[in-house]
């Protein structure tokens, strides 16, 4: 296996991991403050991608395309991402308000199935609204491929990884520097006491859902740019895998979710060349469709040795006042 081959896969893994990491953040943030997993999150990613599609289409119709466009494609892209993140944040707010807040004191299992049901509602609403067929995501920027010492990198891949890292950095700064982020961290430690010091718990919870959903929308648009076909169930497989990343990172750990997202992308992408090498060495004929089987067996192994994930706390007690 040559160095360029390895680098090529690494580049692909970075892009693939970006999607996982951005989505995993939403699971992790909500878990850290409310101790529940929002199983509708994968479908919020899907909704975000479709909102992105709508916004992009609208913006393109306004500014025009091709040589006569009033604005360059990257400007349209920036606005598409920002507007869609903003709009999808509201989807998160509604999901929290309608689906989760009334069940705050309910058994955890009820909240878990709420997420699953909201997911089904979002998927079927999409089918009803969009007719159920796959739709194409517009190509907003002209694709350029760079050959860096035999490694092929598109401007799209660079953009996707940079935007993802930028969003993660922004989230990190928000959580560590702002008073809202401080409230989130306090809530992650002991949410019962949060109102007791005058902090509106419901506002912080809603905000967390909104931020997670906005990040999922960004992931949805970036995904649409890389794989420009959307369908109503695109959030299911990706969503579950990002959930795996959130667990792998350590429940509730933001840094862990990012790293585990990239790690998962890396394991998945690298499994394919690994299969090829095994085939060549042992003269076998294993198909690359074994990818997920092998990749997730590795994840399982990691979890056996690190049951709390990479950055998880061994035990976190939420006391009642």
């Amino acid at each position, binding site marked *: 296996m040559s160095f360029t081959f390895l680098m090529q896969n690494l580049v692909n893994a970075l892009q693939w991991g970006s999607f996982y990491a951005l989505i995993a953040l939403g699971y992790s943030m909500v878990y850290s403050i409310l101790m529940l997993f929002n199983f509708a999150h994968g479908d919020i990613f899907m909704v975000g991608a479709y909102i992105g599609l709508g916004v992009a289409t609208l913006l393109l119709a306004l500014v025009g395309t091709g040589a006569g466009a009033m604005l360059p494609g990257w400007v349209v892209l920036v606005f598409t991402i920002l507007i869609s993140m903003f709009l999808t944040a509201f989807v998160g707010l509604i999901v929290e308000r309608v689906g989760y807040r009334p069940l705050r004191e309910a058994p955890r299992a009820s909240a878990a199935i709420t997420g699953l049901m909201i997911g089904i509602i979002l998927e079927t609403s999409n089918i009803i609204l969009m007719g159920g067929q796959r739709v194409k995501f517009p190509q907003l920027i002209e694709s350029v491929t760079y050959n860096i010492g035999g490694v092929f990198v598109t401007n799209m891949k660079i953009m996707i990884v940079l935007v993802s890292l930028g969003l993660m950095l922004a989230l990190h700064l928000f959580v560590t520097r702002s008073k809202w982020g401080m409230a989130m961290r306090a809530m992650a430690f*002991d949410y019962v006491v949060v109102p007791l010091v005058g902090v509106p718990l419901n506002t912080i919870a809603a905000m967390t859902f909104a931020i997670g959903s906005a990040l999922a929308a960004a992931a949805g648009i970036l995904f649409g740019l890389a794989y420009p076909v959307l369908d109503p169930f695109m959030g299911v497989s990706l969503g579950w895998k990002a959930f795996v990343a959130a667990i792998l990172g350590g429940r509730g750990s933001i840094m862990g979710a990012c790293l585990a997202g990239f790690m998962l992308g890396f394991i998945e992408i690298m499994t394919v060349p690994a299969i090829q090498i095994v085939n060549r060495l042992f003269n076998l004929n294993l198909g690359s469709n074994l990818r997920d089987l092998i990749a997730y067996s590795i994840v399982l192994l990691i979890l056996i040795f690190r049951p709390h994930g990479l950055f998880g706390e061994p035990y976190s007690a939420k006391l009642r*006042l």
Partner: protein
Amino acid sequence: MMLTIKNLYVDYGKIRALHGIDLEIEEGEIITIIGANGAGKSTTLRAISRMIPVGPETRMTFMGQDLLKFAPDKVVSRLGISHVPEGRRLFGNLTVMENLKLACFARKDTQQIQKDIKRVFSIFPRLEERSTQKAGTLSGGEQQMLAIGRAFMSGRKIMLLDEPSMGLAPLLMVSVFDALKEINREGTTILLVEQNARLALQFAQRGYVLENGHLALSGKSEDLLADPEVKKAYLGG
């Protein structure tokens, strides 16, 4: 009356913890609630802070306003009722300074906040030395100081304190109670819950005695200290 409580009922599931308590606090007073383990002292404080639901017959008014109309965080930020909970319950993953600042989440008076933080540090100089330390790594005594400091930052009309003497060495206990006296002199009403009845009654002007969720006795501290029943049950004979 600053705080008037009538018919306070609290149920934990099927278990009734408070069976109709009446309580009144005048502005500027230091009041204590004493009683044995499980008498319902902490429950009373939780009810005032709106952390737990109360019975339909319960009435609570604070400075002329219906307390039951306020959400728990607004009880603190709008009405100025702060609460030092049982077991301190600091945010251990936040620094000392962050714990103090979080308590000002809803406050907009930036300059006053700075002054108040200075005041907390002048009352408890130990906290200033440790302002960048994580609250979870403070000693028990320092944690109690921070819990009081945090309450001081969040609301100053009345402070509800749940067993602040717990786990403190006698010398530190004296300095914590001195600090509370000072906070009270500056205008904060104090409602103190204590296991240590003698200490509480020496500190407070009036006291209430809770027994199994019922109000058994109430009156001036001197009278309660001299009461033979109280002596027998709570002051060790």
